[in-house]
């Protein structure tokens, strides 16, 4: 698409000053993902970027002063709970790959905030498929990979959106990678970790040190902080201290069932607040996951079989985990080659059609995702006072041949079909 046609489309759809605009979105099938029955007719009123009111039932009337939008299906903005979109660029050349600082297996001190490029083509691409919020996570190579952040996929109407304008929450989680990838990254250079044993040991050692570091600082603060006795600052340990104290959730990115087990072992040992990502073989160990009470961010299931650890992937994983009583969301993760990003809507469609069902699948990428990430006060359902993050479809959201008609982020139309 030519930039000029995008500008024209944007000009047509956002003709008025964006913040002044109030919308009334009516739907034949409104999925609020709030309490109550889903999929009936209704209307969402939007003012000043927030949801002003939600009315369900037939015969709603668009009030004066609101621009009307009608959709066959209307849902909350979708939430991708784990993705490298924004830091792993579309061109896939060294210039735009900023997701893996694979110079050191422990990069607890790095933060996706400092790699995020909202101008990357994929950043806008995922918004056009309904993603309004995403947790951006470091890549799969380091056992201790760094801090994630939660961002909107579009922001205030200005030529350039800064990270701070897009951020919903910085330091939203610390990412740990287990399994094949870290040991393949370092082992081939005869550096640690060469084995899964070492990956686990390195994580345990770092968490132990972080606990001691935290204790040292706590003691110093209790002793009224003599500046001369102040403990030395260590950025890695400081970042991990938040994890061992339970302030920052840990996310273990895991594929094989035994790696999932290792994550649960470490999470239990250090009393972490944690969750699992990818979880490819989660279905094989779901009883243990349920007992541990760990939420699962279920990985993109249309990923090619890149390695041994994903060879038991099943389209039914999300359904099996959900039916076992485990809180689930769906994620797209990191992709190393073509296509450079997965589409959350498309991945979830496969789960929906393979046992999960339409409404639970929608839940997994809206309100459940928001609750797992702890951002359900702002987004995840269509409820009064929440951000006006909304997707309008011309058919069943998961059907291959349906279209996203409009996407709104905080009350602004950020995507209009036909505009790109």
């Amino acid at each position: 698409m030519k930039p000029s046609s995008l500008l024209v489309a944007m000009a047509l759809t956002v003709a008025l000053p964006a913040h002044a605009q109030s919308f009334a979105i009516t739907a034949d099938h409104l999925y609020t993902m709030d309490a109550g029955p889903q999929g009936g007719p209704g209307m969402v009123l939007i003012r000043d970027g927030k949801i002003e009111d939600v009315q369900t039932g037939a015969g709603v009337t668009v009030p004066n002063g609101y621009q009307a939008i009608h959709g066959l299906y209307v849902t909350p903005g979708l939430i991708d709970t784990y993705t490298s979109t924004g830091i792993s660029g579309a061109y896939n050349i060294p210039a735009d790959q900023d997701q893996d600082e694979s110079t050191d297996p422990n990069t607890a001190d790095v933060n996706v905030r400092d790699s995020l490029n909202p101008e990357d083509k994929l950043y806008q691409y995922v918004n056009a498929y309904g993603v309004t919020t995403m947790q951006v996570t470091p890549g799969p190579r380091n056992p201790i990979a760094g801090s994630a952040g939660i961002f909107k996929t579009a922001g205030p109407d200005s030529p350039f959106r800064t990270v701070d304008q897009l951020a919903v929450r910085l330091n939203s989680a610390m990412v740990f990678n287990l399994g094949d990838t870290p040991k393949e990254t370092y082992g081939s250079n005869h550096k640690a970790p060469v084995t899964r044993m070492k990956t686990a040991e390195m994580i345990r050692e770092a968490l132990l040190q972080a606990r001691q570091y935290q204790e040292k600082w706590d003691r110093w603060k209790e002793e009224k902080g003599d500046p001369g006795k102040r403990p030395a600052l260590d950025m890695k340990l400081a970042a991990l201290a938040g994890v061992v104290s339970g302030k920052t959730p840990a996310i273990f990115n895991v594929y094989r069932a035994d790696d999932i087990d290792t994550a649960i072992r470490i999470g239990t040992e250090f009393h972490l607040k944690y969750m699992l990502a990818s979880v490819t073989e989660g279905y094989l160990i779901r009883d243990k996951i349920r007992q541990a009470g760990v939420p699962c961010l279920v990985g993109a299931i249309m990923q090619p079989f890149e390695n041994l650890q994903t060879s038991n992937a099943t389209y039914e994983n999300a359904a099996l985990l959900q039916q076992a009583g485990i809180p689930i969301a769906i994620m797209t993760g990191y992709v190393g080659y073509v296509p450079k990003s997965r589409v959350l809507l498309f991945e979830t469609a496969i789960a929906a059609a393979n046992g999960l069902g339409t409404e639970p699948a929608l839940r997994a990428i809206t309100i459940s995702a928001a609750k797992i990430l702890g951002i359900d006060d702002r987004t995840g359902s269509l409820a009064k006072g929440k951000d006006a993050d909304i997707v309008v479809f011309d058919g069943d959201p998961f059907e291959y041949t349906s279209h996203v008609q409009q996407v709104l982020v905080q009350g602004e139309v950020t995507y209009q079909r036909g505009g790109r």
Partner: protein
Amino acid sequence: MRKTKVVLMAAVCLGAATCIALVPLALAQTDHDNNVLVIEGGRILSITSPPIEHGVLVIKGGKIIAVGEQGKLQIPAGATVKDVTGKIVMPGIVDSHSHIGIDPNPTVSDSQDANEGSGPIQPALRALDAIDPADPNIRMATAGGITTANIMPGSGNVMGGQTAYVKLRGTTIEQMLIPGTIGGMKMANGTNPKGYGSRGQAPMTRMEEAALARGIYEKAQDYKAKWDAYNKAVSAGDKTAKAPDRDLGLDAVVQILEGKRIVHNHTHRADDVMTVVRLADEFHYRVVVHHGTESCLVADELAKRHIGVTFTMIDAPGGKPETINFSISCPARLEKAGVKVAFNTDDPITNSRLLLRSAALAVRGGMSEDAAIKGLTIYPAEMLDLQSRVGSLEPGKDADFLVLSGAPLSVYTKVLETWIEGEKVFDRSNPVDLRYATGGFNVISRYPQLQGGGQ
């Protein structure tokens, strides 16, 4: 399934539109035949004729012998009749670009045999010498409704080797190969063959890729001229004529020049597509554009030469610079320009269980449903010179067909059964087969203890 006793119907077709074929003599002359399979009651998408709402497909000896409207064809006594009322019957899918068997599952380096990275021109290589018929990806492909595949070497070389046209059945490559076919020739340009450049070897540029391609065709022309002269001398009775040295690679390239072997050319950027066109014009060979990410930008050039595109439907742009302009609307734009479009998996780039989905996404991008379904069946068959055998449900063609639970392009539709030449190769109601459709086939022995999912 049920066995009929006697079902005698008048073999008269009243409406030409609803009766594709008169019952052939072989069937009409006998009123009893135990070797006939009848698939009846389903909505039949024959592809080359309008859909039949309540259709009958009559099969014998692995071939289709009749297609028509239910109640209007004579069915011999003793035939096995399978009722698929409420289901959709369509031809087996033809995947014109796949690496199943040659890049097996799981992807580990020991078993990757698609790219012979020892030199950019490899016409003597045959994919069939590296295909593992036991690769689970092949069973997964049948779970996605694929019955015929063009299994190809990779795109790391300018000329990567001879491709194999196979049916997805059998335990040896000989059983898989379609009799009488020699396969195509894989070629590639753009980014991938430039991989040699990072090792200081040629090709390092697109210019060199084209020069290498031109070089091998020049050489083959020369080789062919020598053989033509020799054969002419021999047929003129010259007993002293000396045969030129045989060259395995040039033999295969000569088959391209003679129109017997189609070039399957991996290419993405529009200027690379035009390099493919330029070479084909120069050496007068038949070519299919593979991937064709930007082919819609030069759609008219392709249309006027009747060059088809087999499109790889990926989910997002990028992954490398030459795919940055990927759009799901490209197939629709090609259709509008009059270019025939097929869809391929490029497995493992997209999964073979999801090729129906690729056509569906093209419809999302504006393509007609008719062209999208043809892009899974008759168009790829034409691109492989297999249209007389596969790609539609017509008398005389191979009995390769699918039974679907619903509309072919819906996410909720399941491939229920896949048949190749009258034999069932996939059955979703079989618990083992099901795990090839959904996943987890390696742990099938433990799977029965797991509850729920899927069904």
